[in-house]
């Protein structure tokens, strides 16, 4: 456990002593703010338009407009796409840089178990995405201060966003463990996370067996349910399995250097 904490400390330090953390956080919040601003302007535009209708029809339509469906839900979907791109860039250096810089030799010849290395690196990246996603909480907080969105739905959506980001982190770490080239780590991580994101697209035309399977494999499918406010055990199991599988494969990949 001590080793895990030591590695978490080292990893987090390297995020924050270099400009990486600040660039990623600023970029993520900048994009988040842009999405939020535009979604909110559209919402207020729609609201004014509906209220201009004569009679009860307009007011009824305006009543159906709500902040959860028109602002928070699309915001989460937009942020999830940004995470597809940003997370592999956060994780690309995790193993690749150590291999290139020769520090991998230090780590692997120290009395530290590979599981501890994998766990330490995972938890550090996990804490970092927690911070990223946590900071976007200002947008719903603004809505809560001036409007009345449903808090439960927001919470479920955030849980979904966090699980999605965590799954992407483990996939990014896995691809980083395969190579000493950070670009390869980032590109293959991006391809893998994007594939997880879009693998459900042919589900409707893929037949009765493959269709549901592709749908089940798709991150989006499970994430979308949570953004709607539905927390289903099936979705939680999906994310937990994906995270566990990627971590396990990463541990094997690191350990494989010791195989004869």
């Amino acid at each position: 456990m001590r080793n895990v904490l030591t590695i978490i400390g080292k990893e987090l330090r390297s995020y924050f002593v270099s400009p990486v953390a600040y660039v990623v956080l600023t970029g993520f919040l900048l994009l988040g703010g842009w999405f939020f601003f535009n979604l909110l302007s559209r919402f207020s535009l729609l609201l004014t338009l509906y209220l201009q209708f004569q009679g009860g029809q307009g007011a009824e339509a305006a009543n159906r407009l709500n902040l959860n469906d028109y602002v928070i839900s699309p915001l989460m979907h937009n942020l999830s796409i940004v995470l597809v791109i940003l997370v592999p860039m956060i994780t690309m250096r995790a193993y690749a840089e150590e291999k290139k810089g020769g520090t991998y030799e230090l780590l692997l010849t120290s009395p530290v178990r590979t599981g501890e290395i994998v766990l330490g690196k995972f938890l550090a990246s996990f804490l970092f995405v927690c911070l990223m996603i946590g900071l976007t909480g200002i947008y719903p907080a603004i809505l809560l201060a001036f409007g009345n969105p449903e808090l439960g739905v927001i919470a479920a959506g955030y849980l979904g966003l966090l699980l999605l980001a965590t799954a992407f982190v483990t996939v990014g770490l896995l691809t980083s463990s395969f190579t000493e080239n950070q670009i390869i780590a980032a590109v293959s991580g991006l391809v893998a996370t994007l594939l997880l994101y879009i693998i459900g697209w042919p589900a409707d035309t893929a037949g009765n067996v493959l269709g549901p399977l592709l749908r089940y494999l798709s991150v989006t499918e499970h994430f979308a349910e949570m953004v709607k406010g539905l927390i289903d055990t099936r979705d939680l199991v999906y994310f937990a399995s994906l995270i566990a599988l990627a971590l396990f494969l990463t541990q094997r990949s690191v350990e494989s250097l010791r195989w004869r």
Partner: protein
Amino acid sequence: MIEVQHLTKRYGDLTAVSNISFSVASGQILGFLGPNGSGKTTTMRIITGFLPATSGTVKVAGFDIFDDSFEVRKRIGYLPEHPPLYNDMSVAAYLRFVARIKGMPKAEIADALDRVLTRCGLAQVADRVTGHLSKGFRQRVGLAQAIIHNPPVLVLDEPTIGLDPHQIIEIRALIKELAGAHTVVLSTHILPEVAQVCEKVVIINAGRVVMEDLLTNLTQGQTLEDVFLRAIAQEEPPGGEPHRSEPSHGVEEADL
């Protein structure tokens, strides 16, 4: 302290190290010599547990490097070919990190850090970021990380490379000081260095041990250069067994 027996390492078709055996007694400094590409680094990487061997065994302090890798790694300090530095960390932060992952008790780390900074002449750069250091300083930080946890066994891959003559003298003195309390495997291209520092010499060429002997036996009336050149020029004997003036595997002199 270190026993290498019939070690072979193949990378695909390439045989980097072929059936090599040698031993290092406790407290001894072994000079590990050989031309570039002769398999020195590969052997050292296997001894430290970084790479697995294709066949053969290595025992460090009685522990098998494959079965008890963890125990071996606790007892080894390793300076690889390129000092394994995190370029965005300060020297002190880096050495503290190394001390922690080497399993040093927290209470001892501050003292160990002070000691090693003084010993390796790093006190004035303790707060500098390692990425901005000169090659000589980087090499010394590399040496500092290898000895900070006071390991019984040290494996040093060309420790004086990139240092200026003054620093070389200091580092040699330091390594000499380590003898007795530490068992050291030292690879180098600088033969006078071996003559000054080492008690025992192993010369490998093309992945085979061509010479293993105490320095005093080797240099009777001849320079180490002559010994080295003759050893690496020598044709392989028909039997395939390399020349060895010492009893094979040196088991007789192994300390237990």
